[in-house]
């Protein structure tokens, strides 16, 4: 079984032209204590942005592979994955950074709602619900994987409009069913998961 992830980043720039204004000159004169003041204005333009990382950076799409020993097929022994960039390959490093309010992470896949297949219809499919995802940080939960896709998670906002969270998502094949023999998933057979982060 193969699992694919997609690294997503989006930036939104909002540019505003600053107004051109002149400045201050003041003076005072007299016999006693004197004071005078002048003002200066500042403007900081911060564009909105959203960055999501799942697994290896740089455009690489990691593949987590679960290899079930023959003796354990369908015995409900959870199988750890390999090929991730964290925890010895069983997990993926995840981070989400945004300054545009509440982020929503949504899982989808390319299985057409069928689950992971072999390319041969008679082999059947392994449902995405057989792959569990746990997180190292409750502030950044992973959306539960599903055949239909559309499950979401809401990272906890750090402060104000800013979300800056990191976690390790660990994947496990639950192994509670006895599928046909074969290699299920991979990018060609419904095994690519896409995590999409959005903000208001």
């Amino acid at each position, binding site marked *: 079984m193969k699992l694919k992830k997609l690294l997503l980043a989006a*930036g*939104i*720039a*909002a*540019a*505003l032209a*600053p*107004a*051109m*204004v*002149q*400045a*201050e*000159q*003041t*003076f*005072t*004169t*007299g*016999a006693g*204590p*004197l*004071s*005078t*003041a*002048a*003002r*200066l*204005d*500042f*403007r*900081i*333009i*911060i*564009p*909105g*942005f959203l960055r999501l990382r799942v697994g290896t950076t740089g455009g690489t799409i990691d593949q987590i592979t679960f290899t079930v020993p023959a003796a354990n097929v369908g015995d409900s022994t959870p199988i750890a994955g390999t090929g991730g960039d964290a925890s010895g390959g069983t997990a993926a490093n995840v981070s989400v*950074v945004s*300054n*545009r*309010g509440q982020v929503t992470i949504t899982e989808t896949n390319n299985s057409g709602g069928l689950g992971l297949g072999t390319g041969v219809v008679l082999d059947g499919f392994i449902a995405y619900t057989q792959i569990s995802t746990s997180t190292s940080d409750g502030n950044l939960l992973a959306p539960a994987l599903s055949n239909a896709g559309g499950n979401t998670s809401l990272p906890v906002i750090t402060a*104000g*409009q*800013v979300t*800056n969270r990191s976690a390790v998502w660990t994947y496990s094949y639950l192994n509670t069913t006895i599928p046909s023999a074969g290699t299920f998933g991979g990018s060609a057979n419904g095994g690519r998961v896409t995590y999409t982060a959005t903000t208001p």
Partner: protein
Amino acid sequence: MRWLATAALLFCVADATAITIVVGNTPTRVSLRVGSPGGQIDLVTFTVPAANVGDGVPVAGTVPGQGGLAGFCPANTVYVEIEGRASPANSRTVTLSVDSTQPLSNGIDTIPFTQIDWISTGFPPVSIPSGTFSGGAGQVLVSFQNSRVALQCLRFRYLNQSVVGAGTYNGRVVYGVTMP
């Protein structure tokens, strides 16, 4: 004989005193200029690229009109001039300070002025040292005895040390010169 009589009369009536000119105490004077002349308020703008928000790389400010002193101050600097005058008999200490208490705000979030610093340039030797806003009131920038003019071109930077909410943040500092 008439002229002699007239002369005698004047001699008897008048006392030989002199006109005296008395000069009162010289008024003291302070003046302050920040940016261009004209009476309005200069604006320093920092535009942070989306890819760099909060990465700790300072963002240089831009200032229209060469900060008020074309030909003397470099582009995108603000000209600051303070002047204190008094006679030695009435010697005073002139102090330039700044109040940066109110943070910049986009209406929801704020950025403290401690995220903005300045580099002094132009008019060597440096009269007003480089520094960072303290975020408080009465931050002393320079102090000297009269009579003197101190002038400097200031290049401002946004330090960009935190990820902050999207939006346009506006704020104002108030420079003050005192001669107690």
